[in-house]
């Protein structure tokens, strides 16, 4: 009943090809957007900001980026942490060189710089596939982190090797730095995620997205119908890195404020969790990127609440349990639902279509 599509007729190809062809989805999405833009900013406090919403938005951005590359174009990448570090350091350097530049432009420029780095590290993808490519991207992860550690120019020769964000404003309100109010940082991230999320969805449902999926599913056949493999793979690397770079930029400028590269962009801190997000969320699904990000951000908080506050375990034991549960969930998902939460949702939708009168 809830997802009944009966009576919803499409008379043009444009409407049939819209992002939300079902009216129910459209309404739900609009309500979600209204709440996110008009309700949440009035109630957000710094706990919700720093612990839940900002990490969720930033990881969503990174997950969209990785999903474009791995989920849609089929090129496995373990270099997410490295590319996020590029975004963060690009932001830092641009801030130093152009103190007057608007923060929105800085963030987008950081994405563009990361895109070029992504193209560079995407070059091996023409020759190698699968696991071997994953190892090649692993090289980018370690090389980039090493580079940012080794060359002091990147962290402006500071003694600690840390990079620290300076305050930048949008419309007179600080969005970076220690004094930024929660609603401002939240809205800043939200606008970027929504706008770029739509952009990603649009690319996926038009020519470039179909080229990516063609390369993913059968590269020989793709070549035969005229998809240039090199150009298509590199475009996926570039656009994916653009998103990941922006995620890195926000991670540094808006979320952490100050960071040290080895610890913040470590493979265990970023690359694997983001890969888990798109696997748990759903490879090749926009919704999956968001669901996966929400899952990975919320799970530790939920587990901590249950184990420490409810059961009364010590924080250390709880942490150990958390890692165990994580690994267990990973295995369970890979075996039982390789298409992730997005697939579970589409199954649920199918059930809701007939509910409460299944036949």
């Amino acid at each position: 009943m809830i997802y009944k599509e009966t009576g919803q007729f499409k008379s043009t190809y444009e409407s049939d090809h819209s992002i939300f062809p079902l009216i129910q989805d459209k309404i739900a999405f609009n309500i979600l957007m209204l709440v996110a833009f008009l309700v949440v900013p009035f109630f957000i406090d710094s706990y919700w900001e720093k612990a839940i919403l900002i990490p969720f938005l930033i990881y969503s951005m990174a997950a969209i980026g990785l999903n474009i590359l791995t989920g849609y174009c089929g090129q496995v990448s373990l270099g997410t942490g490295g590319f996020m570090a590029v975004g963060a350091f690009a932001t830092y350097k641009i801030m130093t060189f152009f103190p007057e530049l608007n923060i929105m432009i800085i963030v987008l420029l950081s994405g563009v710089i990361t895109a070029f780095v992504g193209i560079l590290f995407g070059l091996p993808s023409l020759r190698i596939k699968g696991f071997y490519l994953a190892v090649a991207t692993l090289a980018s992860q370690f090389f980039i982190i090493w580079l940012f550690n080794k060359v002091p120019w990147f962290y402006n020769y500071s003694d600690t090797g840390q990079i620290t964000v300076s305050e930048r404003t949008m419309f007179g309100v600080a969005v970076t730095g220690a004094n930024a109010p929660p609603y401002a940082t939240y809205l800043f991230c939200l606008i970027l995620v929504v706008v770029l999320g739509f952009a990603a969805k649009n690319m996926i449902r038009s020519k470039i997205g179909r080229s990516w999926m063609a390369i993913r599913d059968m590269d020989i056949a793709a070549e035969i119908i005229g998809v240039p493999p090199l150009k298509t793979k590199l475009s996926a690397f570039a656009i994916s890195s653009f998103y990941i770079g922006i995620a890195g930029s926000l991670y540094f400028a808006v979320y952490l404020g100050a960071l040290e590269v080895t610890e913040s962009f470590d493979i265990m801190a970023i690359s694997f969790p983001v890969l888990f997000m798109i696997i748990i969320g759903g490879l090749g699904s926009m919704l999956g990127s968001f669901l996966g990000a929400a899952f990975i951000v919320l799970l530790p908080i939920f587990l901590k609440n249950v184990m420490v506050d409810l059961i009364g375990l010590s924080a250390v034991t709880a942490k150990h349990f958390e890692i165990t549960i994580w690994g267990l969930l990973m295995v369970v998902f890979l075996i039982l639902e390789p298409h992730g939460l997005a697939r579970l949702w589409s199954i649920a939708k199918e059930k809701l279509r007939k509910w409460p009168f299944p036949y």
Partner: protein
Amino acid sequence: MSLAKIQSIPYGKEVIKIKNISLAFGGVKALTDVSFEVKKGEVFAIIGPNGAGKSSMLNVINGFYKPTSGQINFAGEDRKEMIPEFAAKSGIARTFQNIALFKGMSTLDNLMTGRLLKQKQNFLMQALYFGPVQKEEAYHRDKVERVIDFLDLQAIRRTPVGSLPYGLQKRVELGRALAMEPEILLLDEPMAGMNVEEKQDMSRFVLTANDEFKTTIVLIEHDMSVVMDISDRIVVLDYGKKIGEGKPSEILKNKAVIDAYLGVAD
């Protein structure tokens, strides 16, 4: 060589001339000194026993293999080698012996990939998805819907092709090739593994495509009754060499062909 050049050739004139093509993989000679011509607008069949080099011939024609020696003359222009992308751009589409569809995508999306070369908007416009991009998508969707109507694929428009039965997958693959609006269609065993009804359907689709869209068709097929029925001319390969060429009626009487298929009494 370009699409316009192929289009400018009158029907009944040679569009592909294969001249003394040889292809070797190391010591294995897949093709030896093969020459034949394909005329525009005809249904041309390549037949031969297993391992005769039929698929290799198709792969040479659309640039997947580079011939060791010999020339291919395409619409009046000589070329020694070509990459698949250029073949697609100059109006050559093909299907594969083992289905090569995009399994994770729906039938509709698979067919839409056939239109990729004809879509001109760049990725920034696609990201914004307004006016021209939307119009372009709708235009190509309309073209694809015609192919869907033609091949009776309406019911499986949204189904991921990986879950379709074999016969339908073959049909979707033909659809993807037709969506490219090719001048020349290379079909590698389009009816392999099908039952009689499916073969009849497929034959009908191939003939209609040839008749209505004026597509030149080069096909490989093992079912002799089908080949003799639908093709205008046939070339026969055996062990990489051409052993016969001509109309079906001539091929049926060709001594060398009969010997290749049935063996020679000592």
